[in-house]
């Protein structure tokens, strides 16, 4: 790798351009919809909590921004002895 790098030394500008293009595409979207992750988190939790009781602290949401796809990861830990539907909702 280092030998390979040695011969390609100096070609870091294309990497910079690509990283910027991906990052800015997302940041521009995000600025028109601020705090998207928190909104998603609240709404997803609300839906799940309707059916399963869960501990909001045991929920992880992460976003991996990439090109051409981004991954939104929602990791909800459900206690082993989870309660079934809270109220009488079918």
């Amino acid at each position, binding site marked *: 790798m280092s030998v390979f790098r040695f011969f390609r030394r*100096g*070609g*870091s*500008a*294309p990497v*910079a*351009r690509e*990283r*910027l*293009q991906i*990052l*800015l595409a997302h*940041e*521009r979207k995000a*600025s028109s919809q601020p705090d998207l992750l928190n909104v998603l988190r609240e709404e997803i939790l609300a839906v799940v909590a309707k059916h399963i009781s869960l501990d909001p602290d045991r929920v992880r949401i992460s976003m991996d921004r990439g090109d051409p796809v981004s991954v939104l990861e929602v990791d909800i830990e459900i206690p082993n002895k989870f309660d079934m539907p809270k109220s009488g909702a079918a």
Partner: protein
Amino acid sequence: MGKVLVVTSGKGGVGKTTTTAALGAALAQTGETVVVVDFDVGLRNLDLVMGAERRVVFDLINVIQGVAKLSQALIRDKRLETLWLLPASQTRDKDALTEEGVGRVITELREKFDWVICDSPAGIERGAILAMRYADAAIIVTNPEVSSVRDSDRIIGMLDSKTKLAENGGRIDKHLLITRYDSARAHRGEMLSIDDVLEILSTPLLGIIPESEDVLRASNVGAPVTLGNRLSGPGRAYMEAARRLQGESVSMTIPMQKRGLFDKLFGRRAA
């Protein structure tokens, strides 16, 4: 009615103050009247770069608070009689700037001068927003480097949403000025090229200022590079950028930095 320009960037250290001084002096040399206004309250430096640091008596905050009249705070350049400076306060903080007060001062300056050039502080907070608030046009100073380009993108978004002009449904004129450009490194693929930056920020180019030791030399002696060393690479690049601001169509050159044999052999670079 004069035109109000803001020189902004988001990121610090990219050359806002150098650019404000250089463009101000370049425009003033064409006979138009220019005032450069330092908005970096608490960290003023435009006075130093302009070589007027020992002549500051009153400042922008004094004028806003009614302690001094505008005419008392304005400092006329000793070399160019069409060039003036309105310094920032060194002792106060940015909270002393009020939107209404800044608006009053800008209105008065606009009546008196052909060009009002506002040197924005770094960052995206109050001081930076007030510096751009009443601008008709913006110069976004960017280094061909990832963090500077990212911050410029952010600032462009703010110019389109937080300025008075944008709020009233208008569109602020935006010009990109790429500073500290090293065409040799860009050619070798070591530095983002002009085309890369333009493609990413999709903002029209005002000029390309080469990386050069002349810029540091200019600030060392307190003479804008367009006054002290007009024939240097950056001097010429700023003079051409000023002509473009005046609506002239000047072909875009990438000024090459001249390096002596010694520099080439030992790879010494401008600081």
